């Protein structure tokens, strides 16, 4: 009977395509929108991920997320270094500064100041130059996306593509000359500002005069140290906040989840995709069953049990569901692949496949159930009603 069920389904091409399209749309929306959402959310803590080496981040206790900088006094660094279980503790400056470009424009940059001696917290991948080049005077390293786009020089041809900033070029940070000595690859951040790396002391000279300029203290725990225990000791000894890398990511992620409209916006899109997909697929599938009611009646009259008819409808639902899901997920993957070099945030973990799969399954179950009820209640005597 499976063969008959499939032939019935595919025989009515317009309805078959309609059901598959509805499910494809639902699957696409339920996969693509969360993928963009996850991509955006990942960007909120991408800076923390890029600074991979330290185990613990220490900061002002009022900090709510990674870009919420509440500077500390430099003396805090020495207090942290004195806590037992700390292998090393390094300063980091992080702040938004305006860079004046060669064409006179200003561009806000995310300036990161690294410990002068160790350069801990530097960019994860160097594309040109070496991180040690930061020890040269006035040197900075810029990220490739910033160098190509926002920090790029205007094209000599009107409307032409910007000329990327390259090693040897210069820019001005708060009236201080900065020479590009390296190009780095960093993860895109939520704000998508160009990232400029320099040393901690030079970053302090670029930054406006303030009493406190230390943004974070990066801590490496001694081997075998319990990180939860060490963060507790740091908190108790200094009154500062101390988070493991994962805790700091969660803090940042949750800040954006609870304090921005992003989850609601994307959640609404996903919900709409689900509802519209369910409505299209459910309605078309139900219409398809209604259109075939006489055929189901004939099968019933000829001795087909409700159980077999139920299996036939489920098979039809599973088939259209699988095709729609596959197409939706495939289109999402293609979308992600096409946008991989663009500014668009996109992250497609395997869990998302389960999420959208569950959504499409729910739609198929809904569509199948309303059809099954109709077929089970069907009187086979309908076959004699012309």
């Amino acid at each position, binding site marked *: 009977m499976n063969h008959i069920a499939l*032939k019935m389904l595919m025989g009515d091409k317009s309805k078959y395509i309609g059901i598959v399209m509805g499910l494809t749309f639902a699957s696409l929306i339920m996969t693509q929108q969360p993928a963009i959402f996850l991509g955006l959310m990942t960007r909120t803590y991408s800076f923390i991920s890029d600074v991979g080496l330290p185990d613990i981040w220490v900061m002002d206790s009022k900090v709510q997320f990674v870009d919420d900088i509440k500077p500390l006094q430099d003396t805090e660094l020495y207090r942290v270094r004195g806590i037992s279980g700390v292998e090393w503790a390094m300063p980091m400056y992080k702040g938004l500064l305006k860079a004046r470009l060669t064409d006179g424009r200003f561009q806000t940059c995310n300036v990161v100041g690294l410990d002068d001696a160790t350069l801990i917290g530097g960019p994860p991948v160097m594309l040109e130059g070496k991180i040690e080049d930061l020890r040269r005077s006035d040197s900075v390293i810029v990220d490739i996306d910033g160098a190509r786009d926002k920090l790029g020089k205007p094209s000599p041809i009107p409307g032409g593509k910007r000329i990327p900033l390259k090693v040897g070029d210069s820019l001005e940070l708060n009236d201080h000359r900065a020479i590009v000595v390296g190009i780095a690859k960093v993860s895109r951040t939520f704000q998508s500002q160009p990232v400029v790396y320099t040393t901690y002391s030079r970053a302090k000279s670029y930054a406006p005069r303030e009493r406190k300029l230390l943004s974070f203290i990066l801590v490496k725990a001694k081997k075998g140290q319990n990180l939860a225990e060490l963060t507790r000791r740091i908190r108790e000894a200094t009154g500062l906040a101390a988070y493991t890398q994962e805790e700091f990511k969660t803090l940042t992620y949750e800040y954006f989840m609870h304090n921005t409209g992003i989850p609601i916006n994307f959640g609404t899109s996903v919900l709409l995709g689900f509802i519209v997909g369910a409505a299209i697929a459910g309605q078309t599938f139900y219409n398809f069953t209604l259109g075939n009611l*006489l*055929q189901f009646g004939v*099968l019933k009259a000829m*001795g087909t049990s409700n159980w077999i008819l139920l299996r036939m409808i489920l098979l039809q639902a599973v088939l259209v569901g699988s095709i729609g899901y596959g197409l939706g997920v495939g289109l999402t993957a293609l979308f992600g692949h096409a946008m991989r070099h663009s500014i668009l945030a996109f992250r497609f973990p395997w869990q998302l496949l389960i999420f959208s799969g569950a959504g499409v399954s729910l739609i198929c179950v809904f569509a199948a159930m309303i059809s099954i009820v109709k077929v089970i209640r069907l009187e086979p005597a309908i076959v004699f009603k012309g």
Partner: protein
Amino acid sequence: MNLAVRCQDLVKTYDTGGQKVTALNGINLEIEAGELMMLVGPSGCGKTTLISVMAGILDQDDGSCEVFGENLLNMRSRDKLNFRARNIGFVFQAYNLLPSLNAAENVSVPLIINGMKRVEAERKAISVLEHVGLGERWQSLPSQLSGGQQQRVAIARALVHSPRLIVCDEPTSALDHETGHNVMTLLKDVALHKDRTLVIVTHDARIFDFADRIAEMDDGHIIKVKDTK
């Protein structure tokens, strides 16, 4: 006498929007095996309800209907399904072929319902299609066949699993005179034999000559049974 169908005091009432309509009002009828019985009468007289009860697709409210000695009303639903699948063949006015299946696939449906493998069922279906003169058209979809050809496919479908009772609802009313005549000739020649009974509902007077007996119905009653042999 070998009885195929015995109906005693059959009553069937429909509830149509709060109003009771009696479709069968104390029907008594016996049909012998190997007989071609026609049920005739005006629209709404209860002919279709009667064959629905005989075919086991509708339960009566009162009375009994035994088909080959089995009281269908007392059967469990699964047993009734199996009984129908094995013993009853259907021919409909509008053919009711599955439009996305070709002729052989349509004919093979009753065999598949009875548990036969698809390939074997289709092989047998093609041989039955040859019997009804459509051996060459086994791959055609219903939409590619004429009305008469579709009805012949429907007859092949009704015959393929060798049922003992075939119920036909207005099998010729959608066909022209010559095609209707051919279909009836085919039904009588191929479908009817000593172990198989045909019950045909019709008000197409052109085919009355094919009947062994004609039961005239009106207002839920059988008013006359005429022997035409």
